[in-house]
């Protein structure tokens, strides 16, 4: 039978037990043991993410489709072989309008054999039928309003204060929401880690003062990289903004990408 007296006794005991547990130094040790799982690494700590704003730009007119960026990205970031890319190159071939039709242009054919990692062979249509053709490098568009970060149920993907959109692979549960949410197809499920993977802007390089691997190896400077918070003398990124009319991919989605392109075609998505 529940009487006020016995209830008080029970609650008192419960409170006592809780207080005891909280004061026990053992609790601290237990907490330290649990959280040790999440804390590690001997990376340099002198980098302050709030003091940078990294950004990339792409000059489509300069891309020659050599595929060095794709190869360098795979090497630098140990991206598994196969159809897994943090960056890739697409080739667009716009054909002439079919004979007898009065249209400005024909069809658009897009290909990206193995992400363009080994370069490109001749276009898949005869030269006579081609109106024009060009290459478009693709990567994480660094959205101001990232759909991928919005949908992550566990806080494993996020917009870092320095502009990179990153994946915490220890927190990622591999649900794949972000892969579906990214309108630019920039994410994949890494078959080795079973977690979401994407372009990190070579976070381990840029925080050491290096350029992302793709920017480093690009022979024509089709990719431009910079820090908006720390402009340098003759800053290539500021020069790019000053001298080009730029466009973002899929602007109608409201993601507001920080990766800006110049020389795009209406067919590029």
């Amino acid at each position, binding site marked *: 039978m529940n009487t006020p007296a016995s209830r008080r006794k029970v609650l008192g005991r419960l409170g006592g037990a809780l207080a005891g547990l909280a004061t026990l130094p053992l609790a601290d040790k237990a907490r330290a043991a649990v*959280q040790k799982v999440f*804390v590690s*690494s001997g990376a340099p700590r002198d980098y302050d993410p709030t003091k940078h704003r990294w950004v990339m730009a792409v000059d489509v*007119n300069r891309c020659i489709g050599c595929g060095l960026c794709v190869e360098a990205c795979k090497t630098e970031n140990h991206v598994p072989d196969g159809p897994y890319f943090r960056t890739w190159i697409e080739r667009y071939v716009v054909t002439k309008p079919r004979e007898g039709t009065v249209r400005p242009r024909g069809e658009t054919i897009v290909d990206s054999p193995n992400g363009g990692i*080994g370069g490109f062979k001749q276009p898949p249509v005869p030269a006579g039928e081609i109106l024009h053709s060009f290459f478009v490098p693709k990567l994480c568009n660094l959205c101001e309003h990232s759909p991928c970060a919005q949908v992550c149920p566990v*806080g494993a993907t996020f917009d870092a204060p320095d502009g990179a959109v990153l994946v*915490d692979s220890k927190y990622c549960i591999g649900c794949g929401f972000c892969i579906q949410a990214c309108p630019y197809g920039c994410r994949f499920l890494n078959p080795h880690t079973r977690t979401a993977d994407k372009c990190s802007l*070579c976070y*381990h390089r840029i925080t050491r003062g290096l350029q992302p691997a793709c920017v480093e190896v690009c*022979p024509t400077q089709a990719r431009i990289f910079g820090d908006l918070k720390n402009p340098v003398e003759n800053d290539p990124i500021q020069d790019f903004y000053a001298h080009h009319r730029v466009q973002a991919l899929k602007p109608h989605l409201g993601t507001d990408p920080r990766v800006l392109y110049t020389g795009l075609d209406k067919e590029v998505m």
Partner: protein
Amino acid sequence: MRRWSIPPQITRIILLTIGIVTTYLLAREFLTPPSFGQYGWYRGEALVEIRSPEPVFAGKKLCAECHAEQAAKVADRGHKSLACEGCHGAAQAHAVNPDIKTQILTYSHCVRCHEVNLSRPAWHKQIDTKEHFPGEACTDCHPPHDPLESQ
């Protein structure tokens, strides 16, 4: 007069609620990583982890520390915009231990950029290897560090 008391079913609900809330608070205290919320709704420590891997590509600057002569030569010639590692391959391992050699260049590397292709922009120098000295190595005439100086 009948003494007022909390009905047993209400007591059970209250106790159950206290139990659930306490368990939740305890679990949260123990399981939330200390850096969670440092910058936002994610683990701040993840930033440190993501930047911890060692680079694989050394960067042009590091290459020039030992290979200053080649770097200076390339710097004002036709291939000035190229990174050393674009052709020679990732070289961080070589920078740490020079006994580890970088890739040996082959003919296929030249045509990767310079074989004529309709998709390439017109300003880019392209050649048709079926017509332009077929079967001969590009480097016989064009030293890669100074490609326009024919030998």
